[in-house]
């Protein structure tokens, strides 16, 4: 029997490495090709890190980068303001509403962005009329887009702590509801809030559909536009954006790992 097990382990190891090498090549090749392609012109990368020069040469790109950063920050903020108090409040006071809130938060998963944009067009006609056509107004739509991911992160954080007992303890010591949310529950779900914000930033930086079809700009729209005139530069910016998203999401996954291992230990 032992011989059989050893034989199987050897077979599995060979199988494992064959699969990893073949698929690894498929996944790494486009990334390597981007490095090769973007270094064909030696001026590309130095220009990319020289902000004044970059915004003078490619004003649309600089505009897109600034817009995307603003959108990412504001979407995170709006998402947190909208979702965190509501999630806590519903858990504490209106548990019967929880299924409805959850349903609404997960609904955007089943509505493709291209469909949402069709319905958003008339809503944005009003947004244009009321507050103008700035690309920052996309934040309203993006908050809906990130709702499923942010909700799941925050809900998982709230499930891990005993919100009710914490709130009752604080209330019995005389604190108001605002204090309960802001100073008691929030610090306890800090890592969940952080991962929701990270996911939001990563998703917003990669968004293209809504921005391009509502005629606003962001990083992806700028890259797409740049691709029509300067292929090398657009591939370089793509690679840079990609690396940024990778770093964000890897930090996030390490963060998630640490949280679960901390929980297992306690």
């Amino acid at each position, binding site marked *: 029997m032992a011989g059989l097990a050893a034989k199987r382990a050897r077979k599995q*190891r060979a199988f494992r490495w064959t699969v*990893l090498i073949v698929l690894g090549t498929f996944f790494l090749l486009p990334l390597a090709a981007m490095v090769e392609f973007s270094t064909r012109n030696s001026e590309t990368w130095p220009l990319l890190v020289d902000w004044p020069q970059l915004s003078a040469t490619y004003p649309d790109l600089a505009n897109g980068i600034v817009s995307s950063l603003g959108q990412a920050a504001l979407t995170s903020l709006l998402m947190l303001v909208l979702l965190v108090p509501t999630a806590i409040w519903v858990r504490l006071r209106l548990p019967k509403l929880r299924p409805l*809130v959850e349903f609404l938060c997960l609904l955007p998963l*089943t509505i493709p962005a*291209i469909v949402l*944009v*069709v319905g958003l067009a008339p809503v944005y006609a009003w947004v244009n009329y009321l507050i103008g056509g700035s690309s920052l107004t996309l934040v309203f739509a993006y908050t809906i887009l990130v709702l499923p991911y942010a909700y799941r992160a925050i809900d998982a954080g709230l499930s891990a702590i005993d919100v009710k007992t914490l709130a009752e303890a604080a209330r019995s010591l005389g604190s108001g509801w605002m204090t309960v949310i802001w100073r008691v529950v929030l610090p306890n779900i800090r890592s969940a809030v952080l991962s929701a914000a990270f996911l939001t930033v990563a998703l917003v930086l990669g968004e293209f559909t809504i921005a391009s079809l509502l005629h606003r700009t962001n990083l992806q729209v700028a890259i797409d536009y740049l691709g029509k005139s300067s292929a090398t530069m657009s591939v370089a910016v793509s690679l840079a954006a990609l690396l940024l998203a990778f770093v964000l999401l890897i930090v996030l*996954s390490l963060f998630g790992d640490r949280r679960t291992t901390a929980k297992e230990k306690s």
Partner: protein
Amino acid sequence: MAKRPRLRGAALLGTVPFFAYVAIFLIIPTLVVVIGAFASDDGGFTLSNVRSLGDAYIVEAFGRSIALSAMSALIGAALGAVLAYALVTARPDGILRRVVTSAAGVLAQFGGVTLAFAFLATIGLSGFLTLWLSDHGIDLYGNGVWLFELPGLTLVYTYFQIPLMVIVFLPALDGIRPQWREAAESLGSSTWQYWTRVAGPLLAPAFLGSALLLFANAFSAYATAAALVSQGSPIVPLQIRGALTSEVVLGQANLGKAMALGMVIVVAVVMTLYALLQKRTAKWLG
């Protein structure tokens, strides 16, 4: 006691901002699509938009969208399942498994314009691989440039489908207990019998469910195709782009909404099946 109902009313006030926001930016857009699909240009009720979905070019676009999603889902599901199985044979807390699952989590999110440019840099007309192959006498595009058509889109979509499969299928594979294989072997089964009679049927709902999720994922995708295909509108999301951006034909202002409704229906059917299969998976492998 008399205070209670009033308090609950006050408690409801706390959720008003959330519900108001979701109503404006999620519910109204959804209703706009659903109602608009049945509205004529002057606002009356009509079935002409929905009837136009039967036009040959729209039927073809839906057909191509479904073919693209099905192909990329099948390839992604098969290769993703193989990769997931390879991970399961590694040590569960080992570095290999952690690195690959993290990478899969990142790559499953990788789509859109950047992915399109990654493939342009690889197998575009002046891409890295294209040039390298032509130096070695192989012409990647001897039979025409397929990158901007369905085969190319399928290849590009597989890039995010495989990692997604790894993420959604891995938990099911983890649910397979080694004892089952030992039990099967002690009763004299071969490896082939174990896979076809025990593990295969157990994993079938999970595999099918994951493949459906991949299908919905590809069916909803827009940005990658939009960045890659600039001429023509082979698939439904690009047809909707056309309906949104071009001058609308008289009487067809709401055609885009009808197509959008069609997409929602396809995704809803697929996701319902997915949820059903997911329940079965949880029962068998939970």
